[in-house]
């Protein structure tokens, strides 16, 4: 049994790179240029969300990278919003956007999770 656990875990490491298909990560300047069209949302996004969601190193689902969001959006908008407001895994509560209303957070999730081609801003 224990030996089996080792093998399973090892297999997990090996397979880690062979999971679901991942969209290509856009270049850093492309990610940085992606902002909501709405001015208020753009300011909120730039002050809070972009710190993690526009930087590949941060490990957060990236803005406009559809495959990063698939499993999350599949849970439904309400669950995703609740996780964002309360904090979940790497996501701090409210994205540490202290001027954001729940409606703002919902709109920002919609913006970030909408897939874009890798070169689009």
């Amino acid at each position: 049994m224990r030996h089996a656990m080792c093998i399973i875990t090892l297999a997990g490491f090996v397979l880690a790179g062979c999971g679901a298909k991942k969209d290509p990560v856009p270049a850093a300047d492309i990610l940085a240029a992606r902002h909501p069209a709405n001015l208020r949302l753009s300011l909120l996004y730039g002050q809070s969300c972009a710190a993690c969601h526009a930087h590949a190193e941060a490990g957060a689902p990236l803005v406009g990278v559809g495959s990063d969001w698939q499993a999350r959006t599949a849970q439904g908008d309400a669950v995703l919003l609740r996780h964002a407001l309360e904090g979940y895994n790497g996501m701090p509560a409210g994205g540490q956007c202290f001027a954001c209303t729940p409606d703002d957070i919902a709109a920002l999730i919609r913006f970030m999770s909408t897939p874009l081609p890798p070169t689009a801003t």
Partner: protein
Amino acid sequence: MVSRRALVLLMGGTAAAGAGAAAIWPREAPEPPAPPAMDAQGHTVWRNWSGIQMAYPQARAAPANEDELADLLRKSPGPLRCVGAGHSFMPLVPTPGTLITLDRFDGITAHDPVALTATVRAGTRLSTLGRALAAIGQDMPNLPDINKQSLAGAISTATHGTGEALHAIHGNITGFRLVTADGKITDCDAVRTPELFAAAKVGLGAFGVITSVTLRNAPMRRVERLVRLMPVEDTMHNWPALKAQNRNVEFYYLPFTGTTAVITHNETDQPATPRAPSVDNDTLLDLKHLRDWLGWSPNLRRTVARRILQTVPPERVVGEAWQLLSNERSIRFNEMEFHLPAEVQMAALREIITAIEINRPDVFFPIEARAIAEDDAWLSPFYQRASGSIAVHAYYKEDYKSLFAMIEPILRRYGGRPHWGKLNHLSKIDFASLYPRFAEAAAVRKSVDPEGRFLNDYLQRVFVS
């Protein structure tokens, strides 16, 4: 520091050598329970970055200018608390009253290219300030490890960085503007308001709201960043020399490995080099995997880790200091950090390592040691004392209370003063004994906020009872 491939190989070797050894932390700890997103009155929850502090403020405000701020300070329900980036682990921010963000106070408003000063709006995040200062040829002499903080939050909690000859961020400010509870705006500096300047420079947001800060900067320089793995005994023995020979130096002890990662930054004229994507987060998870798999045997954990770590080459990068000194830290944690007299730092660290490696095989987060020059802010942990810092962390999903309860008495026995934003159990009587000017600072605070509008429950315990 340690590549993921190395860890995969490590685990493979471990599985083969120790066939049958069970992981003692086989599964990821569950997500800590979250408070409801809204309370019964419809107020949205606020939580700090790590998730352990929370509140349902009845009002939130993001003023656009000082007039709006002054008006809301006069009229909004208290306690009035400002939030920067929410990175403090202590309950400095929670309020049932008004939560204020200075996110709209952003950017540089003036600079002097001769004096190398810059006046910066207080809500500016350190992550954007470095680039903005670089554009005018200036650089902050010291920066903290994390770049998310707002400038006001960083100075108000004595956020620091590292370097024996370098001050914490507040040690390089020449003035600030403070809006008090009555809406009055005061330009504070060492000449016009010497007592208020000295008391409120590290002010915990308890004196008023700082709206802009004038920084005394350095010319922008490139620095060479070196990361080397060294045996812990060598690092501790050489710590005085490392501090003397490097502009910025710190080290992380990797628990149960006998190994430190020593990080230095020194000014250079060498050309900038490309920087590979950071592997710090991967390394941290690898240390967690090492704990998960080999935590049952400290000896095997140490042996295997050393085998792998000795193959890791040094890292060298050249870039502008603001690009290299601060980092993305996206894996959440809780933290305790105390600042000790520099001469006892290594003795305290030795005790802490021993205590952890005897009693706490669950610990995998590196233990951080840094150095900071003394300064003259009355509530600064570095007040009239060259200091050595020791920081202990715990993954946000795992128990931090019992770990920190074990560590805190050691740090206090060595005369440590806690980082204002990091976990500790001190109260007014403790601060009064640790800070020679504490009573004067508290008196100045009361003079500018007689009704205690900026005091939440925690700050009442700090300043009042």
